[in-house]
C-alpha cells in the first residue's frame, strides 16, 4: 500500500498519524543509515546509540515536518548533526575537521592504524572498514553519503551544510584514497 509513495509522502502520512507509513519509511532507510553510522564511528554499540537517537529525532520532529527537501537529505542532515555532536563530546579536533576551509590534503587519517587490528581484518569487510577508517571523517562522510545514501553532490552539500565544491573535493579525495588502499581487491 505504501510501496508506491515517495519518502516525503510517507513522512507526511506519518505526520498525520499513519504509523504504517513510518514502518515503510524505516524499512527503506534502516540498513543504509545504520551502515553509514557503523562506518562513520567504527563502534557497533555507539552506532546503535546514534542510530536510535536519529530515528527518535525523526519521530519527534514529525509534527513540524514539511517536505522542503528530500527526506533522505533531511535524514542524513540529522545524522550529520548528531555525529558532529558526538565528535564534539569525544574530541574537538575531529569536529573541527568538518570546517570547509581546511584543505583536504591536510586532513589527517583516522587514528586507528593499529597493526594488530589490521592483521585481524583479512577479509573483505575488514579491509574495507579499515580503509574507511583511514579516511578523514569529512571525506568518509562524503563517500558514505554518496555510496550508501545515494545522495548527489548537492544533496550531500545540503546534508552536511557545506558547499558543493567542498563536497566534490572531499569525495574525490576519498575515492582516490580508497582505490589506493583496496587496489589489490579491485
Amino acid at each position: 500500500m505504501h510501496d508506491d509513495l515517495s519518502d516525503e509522502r510517507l513522512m507526511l502520512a506519518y505526520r498525520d498519524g499513519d504509523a504504517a507509513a513510518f514502518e515503510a519509511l524505516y524499512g527503506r532507510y534502516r540498513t543504509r543509515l545504520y551502515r553509514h553510522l557503523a562506518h562513520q564511528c567504527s563502534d557497533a554499540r555507539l552506532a546503535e546509540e546514534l542510530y536510535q537517537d536519529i530515528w527518535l529525532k525523526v519521530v519527534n520532529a514529525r509534527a513540524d515536518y514539511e517536505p522542503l527537501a528530500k527526506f533522505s537529505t533531511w535524514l542524513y542532515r540529522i545524522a550529520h548533526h548528531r555525529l558532529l555532536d558526538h565528535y564534539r563530546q569525544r574530541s574537538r579536533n575531529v569536529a573541527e575537521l568538518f570546517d570547509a576551509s581546511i584543505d583536504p590534503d591536510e586532513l589527517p587519517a583516522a587514528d586507528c592504524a593499529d597493526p594488530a587490528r589490521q592483521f585481524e581484518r583479512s577479509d573483505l569487510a575488514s579491509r574495507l572498514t579499515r580503509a574507511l577508517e583511514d579516511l578523514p571523517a569529512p571525506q568518509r562522510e562524503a563517500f558514505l553519503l554518496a555510496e550508501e545514501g545515494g545522495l548527489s553532490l548537492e544533496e550531500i552539500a545540503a546534508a552536511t551544510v557545506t558547499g558543493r565544491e567542498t563536497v566534490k573535493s572531499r569525495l574525490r579525495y576519498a575515492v582516490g584514497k580508497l582505490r589506493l588502499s583496496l587496489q589489490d581487491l579491485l
Partner: protein
Amino acid sequence: MTDAHDKLRDPKLSRLYGQASQAEPPPALDAAILAAARAAAAPQRPPRPWWRRLQAPFALAATVVLAVVLTLSMDRNPPPDGEIPATPSGKERPPAPEQVAPASRNAAEAQAPAAPAAGIPAHKEAQRSKIAPEKQTPATSSQDSPHPAAPTAVQGAPGASTAKAAPAPAADAESADMLASERRKPLAEPALEAKREAATPLQQKSPDAWLEEIRSLRRQGRPGEAERSLREFRAAYPAYQLPEDLR
C-alpha cells in the same frame, strides 16, 4: 552535475563496498524504534468540539435564566384569583371582612359588598376585590395583632366557596365568635373598635347607603368627616357616578 558525480564514483569500488557492507541493525533496536514511532503516532483523544465542551455550562445558564424569567413573570403578573383552585372566584369573594368583623354584625350588613357588583362592571369588581384585602390587611393586622388577617382569610376561603352548605357558616361563626371574645376582653379599647367599624364599611356598605351616610354627615355639620368618607368612597368605587349634590 550528475556527470560530475558519476566521475567521482568508481563502479568497482562501489561493488566492493556493496559486497563488504553487510551490517544490519539489531532486531531489538528496530522493534524499539518502531514501538516509539507507533506510540508517538497513536491517535490521541480528539478534542471535543467547542459546542460539546460548552454544552453543560450552556444548559445550566439556560436553566437559570428560565427560572429567573419565570419567577419575575409570576411576580409581575400573578394569575387571576379564579385560576387558583384554593381561592374562591367571581362573586364568592373571600370573606375576609366577615372574618375580621364582629360576630354580632348582622348578615345583611356582612354581605353588603356583594350588592354593588351588580351595578359595576366585572373587571371593576375584580379590581375592587384586589384592593379591598390590601386596604384591610394593614388595618386588621395593626389592630388585631394576635390574629393576622391573611391566614384567617385563607382558612376561611373554602368555607366561603361553600357558603350555601350548612357546616361552613358554622365554622365562620365559630371563628367570628373567637374574634368577638377577643374584642370583649378588657384590653380591647373602644377607640380601636370604632376605628375598625370605620374601616369595614368600605367593603360592606352599599354605594347608596354609603352616599346616604355622607349626606347625613353633612347634615349633621361634620363636613370634614363627610369629605374623608367621600374620598374613601371614590377610592372604593371609582366608576360610580356620584349624584349632583355630592360632586
